[in-house]
């Protein structure tokens, strides 16, 4: 009898334990800025996109390894070179209870393509979505569109009925001085439903009981509270007022790691930090060299690269939170040429000789335009590189400025040397190669971020083939070819891939994503 009772008690205890473990939890999390809007086609900004992924869904999405997975579409096939047919998931409902169908997909594509939308770039090459039946949609593209699926991971689907009812069939137009309904309200199909929103204070979302998928985590309520000040954000984590911080300040990580009540999860971001040099102008805008442009000479560019010790930057500036590289896009990206990626070993003597051969034995002066609030340790990296370049008598004046100024200055090509970090949301090499190293063609995506005007016809040829090639093996070969030529030319000076640390209470487990997005449906709070 006693044993039996003990047994019962044990079962009960176990059940209670299992219950507490599986118990629904609240996740309170923070980063420095707020989501700017709830409208999924209004402000194409990384953090906002990541946040809206909890509420809105897309036809296809990225899984834990960032591979493309079905979401609102269950399957797809290429019917002909310009048509991809998507079968839609049946029995899906929006948060307001209206059923999801092909009409909503057609509508959302139109909305994302509207002139006030900031998401047109994700539908570049897409003509329209055409309804075949209630659960089938054809996406019509201008060409073979090899990166259609990655693009569609950012085209969030809204309800046509809801948008019509609330007069938000188009994203916000800033010329109308009115707030639109979709800015503070949301109606998606995703695992979480927006409950309340107070900008810069608190945004609350609760689990969607009617969601079609299975949440692997146990968070039934998430509370997002932005905290701008680094030290306060960390204090709030240490005091237990919040459970998760997306962007802990790098200098505090060693201290955090010693604290038993919190933990730090690190992963590599698919972002490459590099320097670019103006190779297009006949005379640099910001240099003491007059009448010619030293960066037009590949030997000078090579000397610059040989002077910069990426391993030292990793150790001294990044405190280990970076992976030095020699290529322009990260290992998670399709087409990454692993065999080419050997970071260049610094060699000051050879660098000096190359400079002398090029006609600059005394070195020269140049200004480096650098952001100071955009990338991890951005300004410090520039200062460190300037000190290294001083060893070969290249005097670099670091012009560090906030993102809002550095962005337009460099994008207008008003620069002689600049720092840039390039992430690849499509996880496909074409995105990086076309923007960064293909010859610039104004008003197109070709070389739109090739801000120093690097140009090599062979690279252009390979990149142009990439645009229409659909075979993955051939695409990888083309990406490798373009990367190799660019590397020999020293078109840019790649520094490293940046690591992103996330900090959380010890009882929180998350899945780290290289695109720096927290997926709440996978989070467990014990």
């Amino acid at each position, binding site marked *: 009898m006693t044993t039996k009772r003990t047994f019962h008690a044990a079962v009960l205890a176990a059940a209670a334990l299992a219950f507490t473990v599986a118990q629904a939890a609240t996740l309170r999390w923070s980063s420095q*800025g*707020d989501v*700017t*809007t709830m*409208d999924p086609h*209004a*402000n*194409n*900004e990384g953090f906002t996109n990541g946040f809206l992924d909890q509420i809105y869904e897309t036809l296809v999405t990225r899984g834990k390894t960032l591979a493309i997975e079905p979401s609102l579409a269950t399957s797809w096939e290429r019917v002909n070179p310009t048509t991809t047919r998507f079968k839609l998931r049946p029995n899906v409902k929006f948060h307001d209870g209206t059923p999801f169908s092909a009409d909503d997909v057609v509508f959302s594509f139109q909305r994302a393509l509207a*002139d*006030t939308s*900031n998401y*047109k*770039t994700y539908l570049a090459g897409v003509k329209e979505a055409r309804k075949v039946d209630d659960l089938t949609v054809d996406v019509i593209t201008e060409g073979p569109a090899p990166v259609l699926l990655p693009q569609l991971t950012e085209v969030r689907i809204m309800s046509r009925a809801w948008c019509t009812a609330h007069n938000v069939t188009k994203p*916000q*137009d*800033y*010329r109308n*001085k*009115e*707030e*639109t309904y979709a*800015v*503070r309200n949301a109606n998606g199909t995703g695992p979480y439903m927006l409950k309340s929103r*107070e*900008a*810069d*204070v*608190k945004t609350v979302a609760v689990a969607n009981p009617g969601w079609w998928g299975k949440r692997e985590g146990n968070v039934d309520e998430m509370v997002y*509270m*932005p*905290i*701008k*000040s680094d*030290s*306060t*954000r960390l*204090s*709030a984590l*240490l*005091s*237990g*007022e919040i459970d998760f911080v997306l962007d802990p300040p790098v200098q505090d990580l060693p201290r955090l790691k010693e604290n038993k009540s919190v933990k730090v999860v690190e992963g590599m971001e698919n972002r490459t930090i590099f320097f670019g040099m103006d190779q297009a102008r006949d005379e640099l805008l910001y240099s003491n060299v007059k009448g010619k442009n030293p960066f037009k000479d590949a030997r000078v560019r090579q000397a610059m690269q040989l002077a910069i010790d990426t391993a030292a930057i990793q150790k001294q500036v990044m405190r280990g939170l970076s992976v030095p590289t020699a290529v322009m896009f990260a290992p998670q990206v399709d087409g990454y040429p692993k065999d080419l990626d050997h970071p260049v070993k610094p060699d000051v003597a050879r660098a000096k000789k190359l400079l002398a051969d090029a006609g600059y034995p005394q070195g020269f002066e140049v200004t480096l335009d650098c952001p100071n*609030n955009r990338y991890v340790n951005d300004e410090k990296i520039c200062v460190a590189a300037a000190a290294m370049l001083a060893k070969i008598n290249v005097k670099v004046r670091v012009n560090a400025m*906030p*993102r*809002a*100024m550095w*962005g*337009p200055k460099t*994008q207008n090509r008003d620069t002689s040397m600049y720092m840039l970090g*390039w992430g690849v949301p499509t996880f496909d090499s074409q*995105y990086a190669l076309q*923007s960064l190293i293909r010859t610039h063609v*104004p*008003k*197109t*995506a070709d070389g*739109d*971020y090739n801000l120093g005007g690097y140009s090599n016809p062979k690279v252009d040829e390979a990149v142009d083939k990439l645009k229409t090639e659909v075979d993955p093996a051939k695409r990888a070969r083309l990406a490798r070819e373009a990367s190799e030529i660019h590397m020999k030319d020293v078109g840019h000076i790649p520094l490293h891939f940046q690591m992103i640390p996330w900090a959380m209470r010890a009882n929180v487990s998350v899945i780290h994503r290289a695109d720096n997005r927290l997926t709440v449906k996978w989070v467990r709070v014990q």
Partner: protein
Amino acid sequence: MTAFVLRRLLQALLVMFVVGFIAFALFNFVGDPVSLMLPPEATEADRAAMRAMLGLDQPFYAQFATFLANAMHGNFGISLRLGRPVADLILERLPATLELSFIATLIGLAAGIPLGVYTALKPNSWLSRFLLAASLVGVSLPNFLIGIFLILIFAVWLGWLPSFGRGDVVHLGWWTTGFLTVSGLKALILPSITLGFFPLTIVMRLVRAEMLEVLRTDYVKFARARGLTERAINFHHALKNTLVPVITIVGLQLGGIIAFAIITETVFQWPGMGLLFVQAIQFADIPIMAAYLCLVGLIFVVINLAVDLLYVVVDPRLRVERPAGAH
């Protein structure tokens, strides 16, 4: 009197105009919001279209003229960062800033005056010396550092008080208040001490200096000779006479407290106007910055005007010449 008020009002308007004009001239240097609103991969055409849509392709004086014309109609535009009307955003944040500033001023007065009296009456006690030394620290220590220390001690180590935010608020019409909830009151403690520290030290030192001055005067000596109690002399006769300059300074400080709540609000993520402004700067959110600067200009102008008018009311000498002409 009316002419005086009208003249001051005209001057105030001119000040506001100049503030707005200079602000717009400076906006050229805060950067380009378009680069933050559009993804990096946006084409030049996209950016140009966006710039035109926001009117940023116009020279600053044209932007200023548009702003003025719209502001006359009570329209301050839409925040580029949050996509909501600027007037709504500022009205939403106003209660948070005003409540914080009010409590900070209260702390400054409630603690500053007694401490000032004490240090004046017992100038040689060790506590007075300590308080004076501490007040020097208070004047010279930057605001955010005090805030960070307080957070470290009371939120992280002791866990008594929240490190950020405003707690739960109660809506009273358009006003939100943190005075009516426990979490709201708890959240108020650290930020208001941080913000109130500077006025506290100023008030304390001012009261002390004035008290020392007054205690030397003949009427205090006479009061003592009459055999009045120390208590009556110190608080009834001496303190009363020190309060006039104190009130003037506190009145002027109030504008400063509201305007400089920016730093305290940033440290504590206090959802007031200052935090809104700081975030606007980072995003180059011009409509918010313009409206905020004009509002702060207005607050200063109104307070100065009120102080000027009070002087006329309080100080008979300023009124003497006028009746002569009027009659």
